[in-house]
């Protein structure tokens, strides 16, 4: 059972709070989407889960306070993919995925055959075997996202924190990556917490959605309950419309009528 729970979490970089008193949780195997306009505090909230920012309040993973865990213990529980990961020039895909095994290695140790086997498992889960020797810096956007996911799968963390993992992808590549995440979530029983811009995708893929605005948690619940026109119009823009296709909400932004004239 791997759950993640944010309790009264606040983040302040020195110029006023960017996250204020947010309490929010996800249960094991759940996919929680965090949506909101740019600057809403989504990334900062996610970064508290991996201790990448200073914050007040508490974050519990698996029932344990992250502040009581060592860096390695935390890294074995929570894996993280940043908005724009750095893919070092000249590094082979295999080596990049192998970095996911870092929390399991002693400071001076090198990888075991077990580590290597897990890297191959991760590569095969993301259909990347043929790319193993390729330079990670020469791959396309969709391929590098899969490589990042392979790295966090090799990390064997039960909680996956994704910061806009698909923001830079075209529609089909984004869809493919989200499907991969969903498959990994069910096959490995992983809890996913992801910031996501595409509200329609959030509605289709995620079990629950939390809306943030200016550092505050506005609403949290099942996608159909939370992603309503009135809430979204208030948080994002009055031009937002929520349509429905096959029972799922489809969220679009319409150009105002005056603009056509």
């Amino acid at each position, binding site marked *: 059972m791997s759950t993640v729970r944010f309790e009264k979490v606040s983040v302040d970089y020195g110029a006023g709070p960017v996250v204020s008193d947010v309490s929010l949780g996800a249960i094991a195997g759940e996919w929680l989407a965090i949506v909101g306009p740019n600057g809403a505090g989504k990334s900062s909230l996610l970064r508290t889960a991996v201790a990448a920012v200073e914050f007040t309040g508490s974050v519990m993973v698996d029932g344990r306070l992250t502040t009581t865990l060592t860096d390695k*213990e935390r890294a074995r529980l929570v894996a993280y993919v940043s908005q724009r990961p750095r893919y070092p*020039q*000249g590094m082979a895909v295999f080596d990049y995925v192998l970095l*996911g095994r870092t929390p399991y290695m002693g400071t001076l140790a090198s990888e075991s055959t077990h580590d*290597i086997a897990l890297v*191959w498992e991760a590569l095969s889960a993301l259909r990347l075997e043929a790319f193993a020797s390729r330079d990670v810096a020469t791959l396309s956007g969709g391929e590098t996202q899969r490589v990042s996911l392979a790295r966090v799968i090799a990390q064997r963390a039960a909680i996956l924190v994704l910061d806009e993992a698909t923001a830079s992808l075209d529609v089909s590549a984004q869809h493919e990556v989200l499907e991969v995440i969903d498959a990994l979530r069910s096959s490995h029983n992983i809890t996913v917490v992801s910031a996501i811009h595409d509200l329609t995708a959030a509605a289709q893929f995620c079990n629950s959605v939390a809306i943030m605005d200016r550092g505050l948690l506005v609403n949290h619940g099942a996608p159909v309950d939370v992603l309503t026109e009135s809430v979204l119009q208030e948080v994002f823009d009055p031009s937002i419309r929520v349509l429905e296709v096959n029972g799922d909400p489809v969220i679009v932004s319409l150009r105002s009528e005056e603009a056509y004239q």
Partner: protein
Amino acid sequence: MNAGRPTGTRLHWWWVVGAAVVLVAAIIAGVMIGAVRLSPSQVVGSMLDRLPFVDLDTGLTVRQEAIVWQIRMPRVILAVVVGSMLSAAGAAYQGVFRNPLADPYLLGAGAGAGLGATLAIAYGPNTGDWLVDPIPLAAFAGALIGVSFAYLLGYTVRSGRTSVTLILAGVAVAAFLTALQTFIQQRESETLREVYGWILGSLNTAGWAEVRLVAPYVVVGLGVVFAGRRLLDVLSVGDTDASTLGVRPGRIRLVIVIFATLGTAAVVAVTGLIGFVGIIVPHTVRLLTSASYRVIVPLSILLGGAFLVLADIIARTAVAPAEIPIGVVTAIFGAPFFAMILRTSKAVVS
């Protein structure tokens, strides 16, 4: 189970053997070449003769023995030690700062050593009276003080401690110390020649005493950089990602910089500022083999030693009996060689 599948970047044994062969060949050449010519078999014989349980008749005269063991060998070994240290420190700095232009002098070690040496030369009492030569001592202290300043400055910046603020702090400290050094050098112009000679670097004074002096620092410095080679790969994904993998980038950076600087300060104190080695050797290794520090660090240690031995052969023979400063040789021969590697290599430096 994974037979035949690639298992990631490996330090292949043939790379290590190749680099070791180059190093040994360079050492033999370094001992052979000079005003008194010796043959490779004489040199190898004399070296084997020194091994325990080996007793060879090398056919060398007592004078030739003395040339090999009292004059040439300490100089060659010092070149190996200095070249290894500067190359490994360069690789380490490039790794912790994720900057291909980083070299061991980046954070002010060179400028600090220069200022220390200049102060000792200009204002020091007659160095002959001292029990220990104050110039290397002052250079060593200057290098450590320079880097400490840069680190303190970089880590007290309010806008956040990143590797970039540290580099900028290093640039500021280096500029300041160099300005002080230049000022003193201009005021005390009668010592100009000595200061200048020191700054350009030389292995001219090398004896076993110098080798013994730097060896402990270099062994520790190389040991730490070598041990940290896998962590340098982890740092290459950026500080945030590295920290989510359970390591502390700031701490790794501090430890590696401390020990790389300690080794660099020690070799600079004895030989002066030998430039370019810390950039050219790691990048040549990178372009020819792999971008992984697990490969770059060990091969840079071996090939950095070989490179400086070869550079020193040119420095002391090209215009014999005079010597060219070795820092000039590393740049004059190193730069075109590096340009050639850069042009013919498929890999690109990020």
